[in-house]
């Protein structure tokens, strides 16, 4: 019964549905591009370079004659993969740290973890990426690491904050009385109770990750050629904007709509999963 009620209100949430629809379009485009694209993006066709959008090339072609529509499809893979893994790093490392801090509230471990968090927070993800790139050179992997590091304190803070009030609740007390240790309680009782929050925040960080990946690859710190990426397509379009402005339009819209979709989905999920928390716009 509860399940169907949940589904009903999910379908009724306009934000969630619109967000999921937008996000699915790009997720499906990325998946389809793994096996099929209208044109092969690795084949250069100089004869048909810089074509305006037409029935043949929906989004036109670039300076190498590659089909922009196909490039945007393949670019979705890079954006989604980078942002998704970066969220995974944030959750995988941040949540255990946050739970450990909450379990040791006021102890030295709590203090060390939270101070470390503040420190990482002081490095904007772009600066982390710059440092990593200066030392190891630019690549998609380094972009993932940079965005992932930025995500760790976000999830650590969130899970600590959400876990602290839970530790005073009766069901935790009874688990303690039953002899369970802090680690088991965190994993078996705290974690399931903060999953909703993590899902909502994960959606938001996912959208921030897409934006960050686009920014990094725009300045050349992300995925390297020949891997297509939305950010780099925009960087390459910039020298051609006076003769082929369409090249700057489509990858940008792809980023905008993906991020918008994730943000709307995040809003919708938040209203649905946790009505107590009101969206503040971040």
């Amino acid at each position: 019964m509860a399940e169907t009620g949940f589904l009903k209100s999910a379908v009724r949430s306009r934000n969630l549905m619109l967000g999921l629809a937008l996000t699915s379009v790009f997720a499906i485009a990325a998946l389809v591009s793994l096996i099929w694209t209208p044109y092969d993006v690795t084949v250069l066709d100089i004869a048909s370079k810089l074509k305006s959008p037409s029935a043949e090339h929906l989004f036109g072609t670039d300076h190498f004659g590659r089909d922009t529509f196909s490039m945007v499809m393949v670019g979705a893979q890079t954006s989604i993969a980078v942002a998704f893994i970066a969220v995974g790093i944030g959750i995988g490392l941040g949540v255990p740290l946050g739970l450990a801090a909450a379990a040791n509230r006021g102890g030295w471990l709590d203090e060390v973890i939270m101070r470390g968090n503040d420190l990482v927070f002081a490095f904007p993800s772009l600066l982390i990426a710059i440092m990593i790139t200066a030392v190891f050179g630019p690549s998609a992997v380094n972009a993932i690491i940079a965005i992932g590091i930025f995500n760790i304190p976000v999830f650590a803070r969130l899970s600590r904050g959400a876990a602290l009030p839970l530790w005073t609740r009766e069901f935790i007390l009874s688990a303690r009385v039953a002899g369970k240790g802090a680690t088991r309680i965190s994993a078996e009782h705290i974690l399931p109770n903060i999953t909703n929050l993590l899902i909502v925040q994960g959606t938001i960080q996912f959208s921030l990750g897409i934006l960050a990946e686009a920014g990094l690859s725009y300045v050349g710190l992300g995925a390297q050629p020949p891997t297509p990426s939305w950010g780099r397509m925009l960087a390459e379009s910039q020298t051609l904007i006076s003769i082929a402005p369409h090249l700057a339009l489509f990858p940008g819209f792809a980023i905008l709509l993906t991020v918008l979709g994730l943000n709307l989905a995040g809003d919708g999920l938040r209203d649905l999963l946790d009505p107590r928390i009101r969206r503040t716009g971040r």
Partner: protein
Amino acid sequence: MLPYLIKRLGSLIVSLLVASLVIFACIEVVPGDPASFMLGINAQPDTVDALREELGLNQTIAQRYMSWITGLLTGDMGTSYTYRSPVSDIVADRLQVSLPLALYALALTVLVAFPVGVLAAARRGSATDLSVMGVTQLGIAVPNFWFAILMVIVFAINLGWFSAGGFPGWDAGFFAGLKALTLPAVALALPQASILARVMRSSLLDTLSEDYIRSARAKGLTKRQVMWRHALRNAMIPVLTIIGLQFSFLLAGAIIIENVFFLPGLGRLVFQAITQRDLIVVESVVMLLVFAVILVNFLVDLAYAWVDPRLRARS
């Protein structure tokens, strides 16, 4: 206030120390020897030796760290090996672009977000409110460098109102400089203003639902009086937090936006330094940017304590 100040100052210093250690360590883990890393594989051995000498690589790590830190504290950031001039001179030069750009963008952010946020909150649920929420939702999702490119297409290429990039220098006149920074500042401000307007709106709505607001209305104050005298001031704390956070986003964003407009600021300096493997510049500029972020957060904390006496008492 004083004990609070001392405590915060202490943690400011610790943060800066740890940050400097992290940055220094990052540069230290460069594969192989920094001198040959910077010069590339085709460098002559005696050139490498000369650079090793200059970088102080013959000293111990601790000595190098100490001389870097004492240098930073005395304003000596070493000599850039690509520009062959003191890093502090280059940085001072580039700051003349980056700092005004960040402040310009911050001013635009606040000037747009405040009235828009107040308007949306005052007319909650109206068409105005809905369109503010819609437009800001878009503003948050737009990648600002793409928005910058679109503005170049419209305002520089098609309308010819602005130049597509570059900076004439402040010598060309204050307004010429300001004009060159206008499109970049707007691009930087768009997502931040969208976020801030939403925070402003929701913070005001929270405050407006408080009991003391109802009392103020009940004793006969008009909606407008309540808004200005009671609600706005109390809604400022979350808004201040976000402004503090935004400064670091503005700095990071400026690094990208400077590249869109070919502005000779710190951001372009860092990128050129990376491509030229000029680690001395990278190390010091990153430290400077992190210092700026940590300092701003410190100032925001002090501002809280000033606005909200409860925070002072708690420490």
